């Protein structure tokens, strides 16, 4: 009896295996597979997976998609060499680091059809990290601020102070991302977030250590959902989270504190290891296409540098400061640039100490 059931089990597994292979076939409309494969590395929840399928259906090029949650994780996974990535999307200062280390290949933007959709403002923006303008393709941008539940707070939330003064102990979620957490603390203390002054960085670290007992959790992507679910009153999040947060829970609001914050831009790089540059450029071009860019925008609601998308937006969205940060908000924000290795090592050490405390 047991042998029979086991054989039946094995048999059904074989069947399910075979049907699994069949299930991955494309519809009749799709272009046959060319055998080309692109390995793409991006932040999690940052690209509509349907768009990946769409790309494969239209071009026959397969995409192997890998995700990371922070720039440091991305950098480490990339550098460890276990996987050969073709395209990487990462944050400004990490892009600069990779470009400076020679990890990126120039992209022929002139050969691409849809890149003119990206507003010139952002190409200029990227000059800080990519002076020649040949390596980085702007993807999404935004600010960092506080997402909070209006029903649970008293008074105005317009300063980083609320995170540190103990009023909301146990109700705060901080970012589990080294630079972001230090950045906002430095801004709160009145320093530049690009400072290399050790005493200033240590001061920020001390403040963070003092704050830790009040912090409910250090999270990245889950932060928004935790506030939505009512598990915390406020969280440090990227501006893109604000719209969805408000959508899921209308009591939530987003603010960029008056001390200033970080304005960031995430861009695509083509790695030096990429051999099939034509396929890679096809993909990047695909991302800038109005319908695709719109789909990605609607997947995550982050601020898009793509004019074609902005033009297609409802007025309500266009005027929402979470979707398109106002100039007032961005004027008090700094761009994060890379730091020398000594400072990075200092950050690493202090971050480890903070987490281990």
């Amino acid at each position, binding site marked *: 009896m*047991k042998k029979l059931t*086991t054989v039946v089990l094995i048999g059904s597994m074989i069947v399910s295996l075979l049907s699994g292979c069949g299930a991955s076939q494309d519809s009749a409309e799709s272009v046959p597979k060319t055998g080309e494969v692109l390995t793409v590395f991006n932040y*999690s929840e940052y690209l509509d997976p349907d768009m990946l399928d769409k790309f494969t259906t239209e071009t026959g090029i397969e*995409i192997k998609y890998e995700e990371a949650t922070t720039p440091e994780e991305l950098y480490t996974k990339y550098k460890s060499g*276990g996987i050969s990535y073709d395209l990487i999307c990462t944050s400004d200062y990490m892009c600069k680091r990779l470009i400076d280390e020679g990890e990126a290949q120039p992209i022929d933007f002139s050969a691409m059809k849809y890149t003119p959709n990206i507003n010139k403002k952002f190409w200029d923006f990227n000059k800080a990290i990519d002076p020649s303008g040949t390596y980085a393709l702007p993807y999404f941008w935004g600010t960092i601020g506080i997402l909070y539940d209006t029903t649970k707070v008293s008074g105005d939330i317009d300063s980083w102070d609320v995170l540190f003064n103990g009023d909301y102990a146990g109700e705060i979620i901080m970012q589990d991302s080294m630079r972001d957490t230090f950045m906002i603390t430095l801004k709160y203390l009145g320093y530049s977030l690009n400072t290399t002054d050790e005493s200033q960085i240590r001061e920020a670290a001390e403040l963070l250590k003092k704050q830790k007992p009040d912090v409910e959790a250090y999270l990245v992507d889950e932060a928004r959902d935790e506030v939505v679910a009512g598990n915390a009153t406020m969280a440090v999040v990227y501006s893109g989270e604000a719209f969805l947060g408000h959508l899921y829970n209308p009591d939530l609001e987003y603010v960029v504190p008056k001390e200033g914050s970080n304005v960031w831009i995430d861009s695509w790089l083509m790695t030096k290891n990429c051999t099939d540059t034509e396929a890679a450029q096809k993909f990047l071009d695909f991302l800038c296409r109005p319908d695709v860019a719109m789909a990605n925008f609607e997947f995550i609601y982050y601020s898009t540098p793509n004019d074609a998308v902005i033009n297609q937006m409802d007025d309500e969205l266009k005027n929402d400061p979470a979707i398109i940060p106002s100039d007032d908000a961005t004027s008090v924000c700094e761009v994060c640039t890379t730091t020398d290795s000594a400072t990075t090592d200092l950050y690493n050490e202090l971050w480890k100490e903070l987490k281990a405390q």
Partner: protein
Amino acid sequence: MTGKTLGKIYIALILLFLYAPIAVLIVLSFNASRSRVVWGGFTLQWYTSLVENSSIMGALWTTFGLAFASALISSVIGLLGAIGIYSMRRRGYQIMLFATNIPMINADIVTGIALLLWFVRFLPLGFTSVLLAHVTFNLPYVILCILPKLRDMDIYQYEAALDLGAGELYAFIRILMPQILPGVLSGFLMAITMSMDDFVITYFTKGAGVNTLSTLIYGEIRKGIKPEMYALSTVLFFIVLLLLILVNLPYDRLFGKIDTTRRDL
């Protein structure tokens, strides 16, 4: 209250502890609202979006494929290995037994990292690397399921068959194999289970775009609530329940098997 009733209450509490979370998952999978605490009406939408979600489905097939393939490979190598070990002299036997135990005693994280460091040198990470890793940690279970059966084997029947003129291979297949087959099957099933439930080793040795259910769920948890996950849990729970009922129908034999194994060791 009698001692017996107290006892039953205690067991009920333990069962509650074990199953309440699972029950919660099942109930939430039908919840129309994304909320974890507010019931928003009954819906099957999460189940339909589950099936339509290509990354979840992909991970599902990867998990099954990985489990099946690694179980198959490790059963074959393991069977041959177990016979080889069994036939060794004392020194070799003890060394091999120790080596076999290493992946089981070692923490997952150390095995995973060790394999990662080794693979990075000559193999790009991908499905193959995970498969090799899975075979590596499945082998000990297979061998340790088969060895006791080899020890219990009735060698005299085999020799009698030889005396009566049977060829070696024929005698082996007709007389000895049936005696060790339960061990081989147990090993195979153990391997499938271990493979399907593994997270840490897969996490370190997988390549881009390769995801098993465990790594996918872990990634999804870090991103935020996805009600499709609840639907997935419910489906998996019932599959496991069904499988276990099927395979365990002659369940009272379990005690007998465990008993003999214990006394042997």
